[in-house]
């Protein structure tokens, strides 16, 4: 009885946190009860459909290609193991920003603090809050693979039940791992200044180290095999699979559960479920020990309150030009708010990070398979490279929150004796500078993977820059029309911002749609023509959209806020 009551309470707390982060009931109320802004709802719906239709076919092709290759080699079960691993590791990396953010920098905890709620209950709620978002990684990287495998091998009921379990628990381990690292770490490392950033940095460093470790052990498994030994390994699929015990343990359990039948399959799934629950419990335990105290300490700031030297004042007041002052403001207001900095930078540096991950598996057979697949499109590296870099660069969420991020401080901008044009320019320059990081990191990735030459790199850079300009402007226009300004919790300007959500179908729709066109027309249009076309499309639409953007911002500044 008490147990059930406790569980109910836990679920209630979790729901409050989830709801306050993503605004589900607010939207439900708005769209379905008040029937207001229904267009928003249909817009979201139709963009999801567009996304599925534009990227879907290409994705399916990749999946079926991979499946065939694994089947040919007789290591079909690795198809599943890889998918579970990829979803997990991807969750691990994208989750770190989100987890630290929602643990330490999300204001919804403050509301709970004065209430008699235990730290472990809050941590439980926090995990649910993060999980609900992270499961998206599994929806994309795991679910289609499970379904494809199941359909292709005419799986029985046990398979389907197990695959549902594997799917729904697939993000528990990554999130728990992050928390198990972060929670004690935040207590061990005591920083005086910039605590918020130091905690994040420390977490990232630890994660990258652990990832390097994973890829290193992975390499050890594969290097130094003679061809004969390698063939022997191939003849025994389990031999390959067991290597996942060192790389990503849950994948080993999950695959075993999925490919075994009867009692065996049942026992493996029990192990898998048990493993995840164990990790979960450990997290809750650590949360109870470390969470509240760290959170409270993060609310204090370091002030030295000393007499300052006269030249300190003089140095701090050096003259900068108007433009520079405004650009510095953009960077400061972006970097100094952890939620903004993490979200914005994460999306443009996620590429090289994934690359390190990928390159770690260089010697594995799957890597070779994927490379063969990619090599068959080597001729089209420039147009595809442009689209890929554009994707990485325009997903920064900075353009789509360019005005929302100001929040109430938009009034500060409004008070400045500065033209709207200059303000728009500086915002655009800032957004684009962050995007360029994304372009460059993609080009480095392409260089390492596909050995592109300097000329190709330059073409990709210009093409991606032009297209990113264009996509960033579209996103800024959308945000400028209806910015979310009334917030206390900066998360609202990013996560709960419809404008940011809209940028996903826009960017994916553009890159995926054009990518599909390139693929369809590969017999008719040469890669050079496509590269030129993309540069021109990006350039001319940017020139055209600039005027619209200015108009939108002018409107925004004339409106009462």
């Amino acid at each position, binding site marked *: 009885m008490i147990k059930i009551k406790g569980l109910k309470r836990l679920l209630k707390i979790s729901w409050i946190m989830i709801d306050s982060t993503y605004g589900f009931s607010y939207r439900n109320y708005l769209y379905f009860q008040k029937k207001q802004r229904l267009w928003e709802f249909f817009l979201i719906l139709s963009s999801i459909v567009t996304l599925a239709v534009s990227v879907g076919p290409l994705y399916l092709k990749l999946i079926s290609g991979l499946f065939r290759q694994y089947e040919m080699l007789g290591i079909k079960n690795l198809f599943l193991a890889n998918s579970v691993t990829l979803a997990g590791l991807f969750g691990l990396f994208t989750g770190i920003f989100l987890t630290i953010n929602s643990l330490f920098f999300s204001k919804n905890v403050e509301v709970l603090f004065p209430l008699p709620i235990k730290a472990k209950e809050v941590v439980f709620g926090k995990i649910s809050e993060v999980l609900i978002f992270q499961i998206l990684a599994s929806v994309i990287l795991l679910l289609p693979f499970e379904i494809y495998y199941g359909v292709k091998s005419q799986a029985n009921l046990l398979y389907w039940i197990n695959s549902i379990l594997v799917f729904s628990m697939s993000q528990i381990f990554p999130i728990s791992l992050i928390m198990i690292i972060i929670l004690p770490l935040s207590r061990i490392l005591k920083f005086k200044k910039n605590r918020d950033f130091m905690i994040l940095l420390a977490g990232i460093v630890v994660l990258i180290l652990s990832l390097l470790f994973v890829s290193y052990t992975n390499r050890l498994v594969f290097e130094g095999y003679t061809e004969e030994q390698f063939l022997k390994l191939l003849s025994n699929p389990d031999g390959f699979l067991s290597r996942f015990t060192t790389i990503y343990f849950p994948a080993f359990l999950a695959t075993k559960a999925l490919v075994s039948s009867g009692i065996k399959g049942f026992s493996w799934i029990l192990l898998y479920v048990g493993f995840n629950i164990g990790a979960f419990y450990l997290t809750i335990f650590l949360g109870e020990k470390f969470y509240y105290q760290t959170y409270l300490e993060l609310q204090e*700031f370091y*002030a030295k309150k000393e007499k300052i030297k006269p030249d300190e004042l003089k140095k701090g*007041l050096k003259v900068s030009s108007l433009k520079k002052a405004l650009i510095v403001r953009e960077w400061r207001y972006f970097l100094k*708010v952890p939620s903004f900095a993490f979200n914005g930078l994460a999306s443009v540096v996620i590429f090289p990070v994934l690359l390190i991950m990928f390159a770690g598996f260089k010697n594995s057979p799957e890597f070779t398979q994927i490379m063969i697949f990619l090599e068959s499109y080597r001729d089209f590296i420039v147009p595809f490279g442009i689209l890929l870099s554009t994707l990485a660069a325009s997903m920064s969420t900075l353009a789509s929150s360019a005005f929302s991020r100001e929040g109430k401080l938009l009034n*500060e901008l409004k008070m400045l004796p500065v033209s709207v044009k200059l303000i728009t320019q500086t915002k655009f320059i800032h957004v684009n500078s962050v995007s360029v990081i994304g372009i460059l990191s993609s080009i480095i990735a392409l260089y390492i993977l596909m050995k592109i030459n300097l000329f190709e790199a330059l073409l990709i850079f210009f093409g991606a820059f032009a297209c990113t300009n264009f996509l960033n402007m579209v996103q800024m226009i959308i945000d400028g029309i209806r910015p979310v300004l009334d917030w206390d919790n900066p998360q609202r300007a990013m996560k709960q911002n419809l404008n940011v959500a809209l940028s996903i179908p826009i960017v994916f729709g553009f890159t995926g749609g054009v990518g599909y066109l390139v693929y369809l027309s590969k017999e008719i249009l040469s890669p050079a023509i496509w590269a030129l076309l993309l540069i021109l499309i990006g350039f001319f639409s940017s020139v055209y959209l600039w005027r619209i953007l200015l108009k939108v911002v002018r409107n925004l500044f004339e409106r009462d806020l």
Partner: protein
Amino acid sequence: MITLENVTKIYSGTTRAVENLTLTVENGEIFGFLGPNGAGKTTTIKMIVGLLKPTEGTVKINDIDINLYPEKAKKMIGYVADEPLVMEKLRGIDYLKFIADVFEVPYELRTKRIGELLESFKLTSSITDPISTYSHGMRQKLTLIAALLHEPDVWILDEPIIGLDPESAYILKKLMRKHADSGKTVFFSTHVMEIAEKLCDRIGIINRGKLLYVGTLDELKKLKGSGSLEELFLELTGSNLPQLEALSREL
């Protein structure tokens, strides 16, 4: 000089916050803007500084229409909002530098001016700390310094005294006097009758969006009979004095 001509503000098509307000604040005077809560003071001030667009009418700062030439007009304004709103993660000095850059204050002038203001308001030792470590009053002083550092002609202060300690309040009042005496304009809103009585050259009383009175205190006394400004204010804004007294006795 501030000129308001037939200014009306209607919020979202319904709330008439300010109605047909015409008012001129001359150079060389301190003008006090009084009125009960929700009378329309902040709304008026926000229209003067260009944060709100009047539904009707024009606002001019030194004869320049703020809605036609916003950049030019804003350069002449030093505005302190009723709630200090600054980016918390910045250090005080970074914020002041930013404002000085945007208003293009030359180096010599900014160091001198900021140094003086920091000393007067006793904020020097906190200026290299993040604003998030400031108390409410310290934040208010910072926005005050930011508003005054570029030596604007026209000071527009929305309830500037609330929240300041007595010493800072005293200094601010002195600064306001000095500014007006040098032939410039000070416009501020307040709820404190004593301050209005002692400091202002002229006052304006607004209630429910309508300007009830503009002029000197002496003229008001001549018009309505003697009494403190408080009594006159209560009478003008329609409070029933005997009833109020009865009520306070009951309490």
